[in-house]
């Protein structure tokens, strides 16, 4: 049994509840013990340092300290949470001044951080700690014949000086996972590009064109579904897909699935319980394709 302090992030607890639910489901199946962190705050959505750099240090230093107190590493399911917590972690480990001022704050709330926590995203926790072989053994459904476009997003890859899970120039984590589940990874250029989420409220046309063009490229490569490890990418790719289609003037209709949902399918999860009906773009076609493998 592997145990993590579980940091789902805000979106997975609100508009993207299906992500949280499904993560808990697959964790159970894979013998991952997720310890909730009800005291943890929002990481700041990847932009809080633009408000105040120290605020980013303090609130995330607190989250790290909470995990350290439990003696656990943190597992995330959101790219941006992963990067933000990792950035602060690196800063506190490498910069004595930052650590000192953060600990001065933490001392007032009965906490202390000493740099022992590791931050892992679900994808790489499964690859490195659970093992893809282990996952394969537990799979009860096959994704054979399903063409799956991996969409990494940014913050799980870049900057590679902070998030060191994969080869930033040619990541393989998602492709390997798809293959383990017997699906066919679709190769396309925009798999490592930006979804545009951070400017969706600033410049919607520009922002959604990024997601839109990635979806379009994957569609052209005959993807059945796109998988993403990040709920913010998911918002851009799924929730905004209709807006994106209008903005780039292309027909778009590609189901977007959260990473744990994809794994959940293989582990025999119930589609309704995994929130498959909560997506903007229907997942029915994908479900149908998977069902063929079951007949």
């Amino acid at each position, binding site marked *: 049994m592997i145990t993590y302090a579980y940091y789902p992030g*805000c979106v997975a*607890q*609100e*508009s*993207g509840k299906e992500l949280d639910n499904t993560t808990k489901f697959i964790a159970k199946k894979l013998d991952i013990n997720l310890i909730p962190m*009800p*005291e*943890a*705050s*929002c990481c*700041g*959505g*990847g*932009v*809080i*340092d*633009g*408000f*105040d*750099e*120290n*605020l980013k240090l*303090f*609130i995330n230093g*607190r989250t790290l300290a909470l995990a350290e107190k439990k003696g656990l590493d943190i597992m995330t399911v959101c790219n941006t949470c992963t990067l933000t917590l990792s950035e602060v972690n690196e800063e506190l480990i490498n910069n004595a001044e930052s650590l000192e001022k953060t600990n001065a*704050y933490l001392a*007032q*709330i009965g906490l202390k951080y000493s740099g022992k926590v590791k931050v892992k995203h679900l994808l790489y926790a499964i690859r490195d700690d659970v093992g893809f072989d282990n996952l394969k053994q537990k799979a009860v459904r096959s994704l054979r014949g399903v063409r799956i476009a991996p969409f990494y997003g*940014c*913050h799980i*890859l*870049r*900057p*590679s000086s902070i998030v060191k899970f994969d*080869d*930033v*120039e*040619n990541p393989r984590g998602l492709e390997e996972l798809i293959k383990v589940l017997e699906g066919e990874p679709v190769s396309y250029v925009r798999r490592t*590009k*930006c979804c*545009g*989420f*951070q*400017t969706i*409220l*600033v*410049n*919607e046309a*520009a*922002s959604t*064109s*990024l997601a839109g*063009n990635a979806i379009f490229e994957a569609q052209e490569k005959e993807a059945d579904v796109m998988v993403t490890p990040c709920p913010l990418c998911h918002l851009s790719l799924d*929730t*905004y897909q*209709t*807006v994106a289609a209008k903005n780039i003037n292309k027909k778009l209709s590609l189901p977007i699935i959260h990473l744990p949902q994809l794994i959940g399918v293989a582990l025999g999860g119930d589609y309704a319980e995994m929130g498959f009906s*909560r*997506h*903007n773009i229907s997942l029915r076609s994908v479900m149908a394709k998977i069902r063929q493998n079951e007949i």
Partner: protein
Amino acid sequence: MEFKVKVYRFNPEFDDKPYYKDYVLEDFPGMTVLNALISIKSEIDGTLSFRRSCRSAICGSCAMKINGISKLACKTQVGPEIEKFGIIKIDPLSNMPIIRDLVVEQEGFFDKIKEIQPYLMGKSNVGEHADDFHALKEGEKITQPVFFKSEFRNLTGNNDTPNCILCECCYSECGGVTGNKDYLGPAALAKLYRYSEDPRDNDKNGTRLVNGSKPNRMWDCVHCQACEEFCPKGISPVKSIVKLHEKAIKNSINFSNGAKHIISIAKSIGETGGLDEIKVALDTGGITGLISDLPMAFGAGLKGKIPPIRLKLIKDMEDIRLAYKILDLEEK
């Protein structure tokens, strides 16, 4: 070892559309991609066009996409690329019009550099040396203005923005520019930050930050981190941009949606510990923003995706309030 170079070719005079041409070369220890291109050009095919100059990673001419990533050809060695990709595939930079082969149109990029007013503004506080410029007479000494090292922090370090060589690797990789051709991009904004941090600058009215807050500028950064990741000089434009954000907000230059967005997130965390998506959307775009996003909100709502209007507080919320209090952020 023999290896293959696959090069993007396009000459608008002769070609209807771009194509790739393969060349086979023999490598030598330490061979760079630029060495490879030069030997193709001088020995095999003189029609291949690319820019190059210093061959030591300081002039920024030979930026191009090597196996999909914007790099300087002069400092990219053939060996490791072949090891990883089995081939050297070369394309022109992205986000810029292609003139021919690997040569892209750079004028737009340089126009954007010009747009940020890349020079010291206002009446100089360095002393009017131009007016009293003179050659020293025998025995004469000159006095110089005093600036301490601490005043030049962020300007004299190894990874600081003045080291930027304007090679356009960041611009080519920038998600913001891909989505919006009018966005200034990382290099220009990093330069904006560089001048805003200069102790000799006398921009009393905050012109830089006000101009920088207009559409297509600092708030259009998508935070994709590609500029930092792929900068061949180890600079992080995105960090400069975030510092610009912080500087603008601290100076109450909040008129842009981007600033409102961040303030709203900070407010939401300060009140509940979490991020209130609806409230943030409302604060950012105002009422118009919400109306324009209604189809989305409505669509999401049908699926039960509209998040709760009022978040419940995280446990130990007073910890977070204390952080805001210590940092004196409560009023903002």
